């Protein structure tokens, strides 16, 4: 990871009396994928729009590629690429025409075929925007964000509302972009998206950052200790509570036993064996980012989709908070 590309200190954005972003600090380094994770209305979009330079801030210092995004917007525009939330474009214009349009605006000579191949949209090159599916529209958004060959990409909820296949297709494109060495600032409320794509994650809630680091760092710092999961008689938990020094819980009929070391695993198993109670399976279990997220944010807020929900398809009604 290289130099710092985005530096934010004490960023505050107020709408009237409400602070949508309430004093956040963060740093994103060159070439990394940073995921900004939080429930709806947490302040993700407001933050990213301040970084893009399309919204002024109320207080704090913000530097993107060394520029103040609000003051040096014109300069910054040429070096960053943006997909706003709910990306839309001109209904009657095709992807190829859209890319040519952006090329003229940015004074670049993009190769539409190459860009569309990069985002896997070649086969829709000459279809009007209104005829594209949600995922294809997002792919066009990505292609347009790449026209000016940006150093930093801001992707504001790029897969919200897409079905699982479309979401995975976008992830593939994003992985390819990351390999190309671009810095990516991603906001999402999909935990899996943050976990699979991001080098580092910031969890934001009520305008404040509640956790920041690599997914492993966050899990280590905020997660519970590892547990041994035992499938078997519920009486096992009763027995262990009397004999084991660590925490013992029952979840979905399974016994969860807190462990500190590898030796603890053997010790617990010996206790179980000695009890003579029936058991079928054991496994060690660690907290996921999702578990940590629920602990930190205190809820799986509406619209926030965790790994366990992924087969459920796109989120249902999303509650819009502050714009």
């Amino acid at each position, binding site marked *: 990871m290289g130099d710092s590309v985005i530096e934010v200190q004490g960023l505050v954005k107020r709408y009237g009396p409400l602070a949508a972003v309430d004093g956040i600090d963060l740093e994103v380094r060159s070439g990394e994928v940073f995921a900004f994770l939080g429930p709806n209305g947490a302040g993700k979009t407001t933050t990213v729009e301040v970084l*893009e330079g*399309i*919204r*002024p801030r109320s207080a704090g210092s913000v530097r993107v590629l060394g520029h103040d995004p609000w003051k040096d917007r*014109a300069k910054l*525009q*040429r070096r960053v690429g*943006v997909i*706003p939330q*709910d*990306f*839309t*474009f*001109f*209904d*009657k*214009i095709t992807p190829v*025409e859209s890319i040519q*349009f*952006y090329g*003229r*605006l*940015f*004074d670049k000579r993009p190769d539409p075929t190459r860009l569309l191949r990069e985002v896997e949209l070649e086969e829709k090159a000459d279809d*009007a925007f209104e005829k594209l599916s949600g995922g294809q529209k997002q792919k066009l958004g990505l292609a347009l964000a790449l026209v000016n060959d940006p150093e930093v990409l801001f992707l504001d909820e790029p897969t919200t509302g897409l079905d699982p296949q479309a979401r995975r297709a976008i992830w593939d494109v994003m992985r390819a972009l990351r390999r190309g060495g671009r810095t990516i600032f991603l906001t999402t409320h999909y935990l899996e998206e943050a976990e699979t794509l991001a080098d580092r994650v910031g969890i934001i809630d009520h305008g404040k950052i509640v956790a920041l680091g690599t997914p492993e760092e966050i899990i280590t710092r905020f997660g519970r200790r590892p547990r041994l999961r035992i499938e078997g008689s519920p009486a096992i938990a009763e027995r262990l509570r009397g004999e084991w020094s660590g925490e013992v819980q029952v979840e979905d009929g399974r016994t969860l036993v807190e462990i500190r070391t590898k030796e603890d695993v053997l010790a617990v198993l010996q206790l179980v064996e000695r009890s003579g109670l029936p058991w079928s399976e054991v496994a060690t279990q660690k907290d996921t980012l999702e578990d940590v997220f629920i602990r930190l944010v205190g809820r799986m807020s509406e619209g926030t989709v965790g790994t366990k929900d992924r087969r459920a398809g796109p989120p249902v009604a999303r509650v819009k908070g502050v714009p």
Partner: protein
Amino acid sequence: MRPIRVWAYFLVFARTYMRNRVGLFFSLVFPIILILLFGAIFSNTGSVTVDLYVQDLDGGSALSHSFISALNATGVFSVHLVSPSVGNLSSWLSTNGYTTGLVIPLGFQSSYISHVPVRVVLYTDPAQTSTAGIAQSAVNGVVSEFNLQATGQSAPEVGVVGLNVGSHTYQYVDYLVPGLIGFSILVAPMFSMVNLSSQYKKAKLFRQLSLTPLTRGEWLLASILWFIVMVFASTLVMLAVGRGAFHSTVEPDALTFAFLLAGPVLFVSLGLLLGTVSKTPESAAVVGNLVTFPMMFLSGTFFPVSLFPDYLQKVALVLPLYYVVDGLNNTMVFQHTSAALVDLAVVLALAAIFFLAAIRAFRWQEQ
């Protein structure tokens, strides 16, 4: 300001417009339907020569003579002189069953030379609307020329009145062609811009554009350029249909082009302004209609304003489109260059005001 960016959005807008048939319908097809419809309804009135009974109370002064010959020269009138001794011209006209008369007052020449306002009185029969309108327009034209001759000259040279319409006679369709060109200048830009500016806001397309180097000024200029193209296209179509179907003989001159350029600036800006100040697409549509429809009917697009009752004529004077249509009539029908220049000045001033107001009010995104 970068021309390449103006061109970039111009292309996007042009393609959107061409692929969206509603806009094309209002720009090109609808005016054709109107000219065919109105032309067919009123073409049976044929070409008009109005019998004008002139009572010269100024005792045959040199100026009243030249005024009468100017009336003659319009080709609209067949002038008949009536003796002052018949008394009140109005009752004489009705007694004899004539419809149109004009009184040149005593002291016409001396007032004119000493710059004292003087009125000629035109009698028309309100029941004969087309005759009355044509007579009023033509007399107004002659009067304007006289007034312009008098301006700034201590001793105007009498008799140098050239209306330069030769033996031309006007038909209804001759008013309809410039009127419907005015209609195109108004309708497509207003409806498109009101609709588009509120739709783009709702669909967050302005936010999308704000992420590019395109400026608001470039965006507005590109939109204006597209409507200028559409207005030129519609003008050609109107002239061709007028000529082909109704033997209209109106001709655009250099000054006509000034209106075809300035008109779209005015109405694209006004449309954007209305769309911008409206909170929702629905309220924008209502506001757009409230502004557009009165202008569409009361500015002389379908019928000459001179046919309207007095109070409606006064209303027309506050409508921006009136000056466009009046200007087009002055350049294409009457060849009143000086009167057209006054109209053009009004149109340019309004265009500048609305352009600046729109640019000031319009933002890519609310903060």
